[in-house]
């Protein structure tokens, strides 16, 4: 079958597994940044300050309309000119986290806007502070409708980690390239990378749906 070499496959597997770990760490760390920063970006667009709202909205639009790879290059290669010298890993996490934060902020925004007006009014009638309104009433109800979108972007960030190979982060594609050029064989490493991505993405999508149902039940929605 296309001259597929099983012994070579087994030989490179440990390196690929190791790179899978790196990929998952990159996706996970990037996602954590995106989840937290995204919420901050969404909330910043709801402050009474027009200037802040405008600036944040324009920033989000800017990030969403430029390629992720450009943002990765920017942080890594242009950052040092401003005195920000970061490792490939750090640059990658920041760029990918920021990129997805902007997408997630829109998901959160939709979730927050889906909470009925009456919930805000009930919170006011209980004399809650703004922070209490968001923390206790609005965000718990905004998250369930946002979960599907959040899940999609979790898979999305995972599939975008190969972009980090361009600045030398040793994730799956970077490792497969290295293996390929050392051994002049690309069939096995690339095929294996494809299988690994598939093997993680597919169950993840299912797990996210299960989790969504669990959260809804847990919140009594």
């Amino acid at each position, binding site marked *: 079958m296309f001259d597929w070499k099983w012994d070579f496959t087994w030989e490179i597997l440990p390196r690929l597994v190791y790179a899978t770990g790196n990929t998952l760490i990159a996706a996970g760390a990037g996602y954590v940044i995106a989840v937290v920063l995204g919420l901050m970006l969404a909330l910043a667009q709801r402050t009474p300050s027009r200037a802040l709202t405008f600036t944040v909205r324009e920033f989000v639009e800017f990030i969403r309309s430029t390629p992720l790879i450009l943002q990765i290059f920017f942080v890594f290669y242009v950052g040092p000119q401003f005195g920000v010298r970061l490792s490939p890993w750090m640059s990658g996490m920041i760029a990918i986290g920021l990129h997805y934060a902007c997408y997630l902020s829109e998901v959160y925004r939709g979730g927050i806007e889906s909470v009925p007006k009456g919930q805000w009014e009930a919170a006011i009638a209980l004399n809650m502070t703004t922070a209490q309104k968001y923390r206790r009433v609005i965000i718990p109800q905004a998250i369930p409708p946002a979960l599907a979108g959040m899940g999609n972007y979790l898979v999305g960030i995972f599939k975008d980690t190969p972009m980090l190979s361009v600045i030398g982060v040793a994730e799956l594609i970077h490792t497969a390239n290295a293996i390929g050029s050392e051994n002049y064989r690309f069939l096995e490493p690339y095929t294996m990378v494809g299988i690994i991505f598939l093997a993680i993405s597919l169950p993840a999508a299912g797990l996210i749906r299960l989790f969504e149902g669990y959260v809804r039940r847990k919140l*009594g929605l």
Partner: protein
Amino acid sequence: MLDKTGFPLEMTGEDTPMVSFRKVRKSYGALTVLDDLDLDVSAGEMVSIIGPSGSGKTTVLRMLMTLERINGGVIYVDGKPLSHMPKGGQLVPANERHLRSRRADIGMCFQHFNLFPHMTALENCMEGPVQVLGLSKAEARDRSEELLEMVGMISKKDQHPSRLSGGQQQRVAIARALAMRPKVMLFDEVTSALDPEVIGEVTNVIRQLVSEHNLTMLMVTHQMGFARDISDRVCFFYGGRIEEQGPPAELFGNPQRERTQQFLSAVREAV
């Protein structure tokens, strides 16, 4: 002491009303919804607000709950300005901090209950006392359970709102508002979204409040019989003004104004 526009910085004296609207005006853009509203409600009084759709009834309650800003006049609660705050001897529009300090006197129940769907009945009641009043969980639980008992909902205390009927949700909402120990309670058509057969369970709770508690209450309702039964006074709103007001026996039995007569006979025909 008077503000330069003639409003007192504070109302004092024996007969200071619990709630006082002074020349209150509310408009949405070019539409004036309430015009120069003057309305005093004494401590412990139950005032019903009736009137045709769009006459501004809900708006009166929403302004008092600080859900709406007013465009003119001043609202006082317990003698102190609510919509405004004193600053350099003048009354200026209230900021959020002032509103938070004064809003604690007021509680409200809504037509569509607005319970928090992610919390059980008990958690809904405990939320305000714990988060806003800073009570311990144990204290808040005791207080909430007592109130849920009173509204007949203790057996459902661990249910989420989605598992409760409209009448049950509304009773929980009343308990939730009472758990904050407000001086003034506002009810905006709390039975309008209910099936006819469960209206009684909610009105009975309000009856009980009237007879056993010394709360000041304002109630917007379309149930004329209920308003007649339990109110100390009924205000008939028409076109953003109080067209006529008085004790229920007089207003329902012998209305003076033509519009009141028309409204009441239209309502009677509809029944």
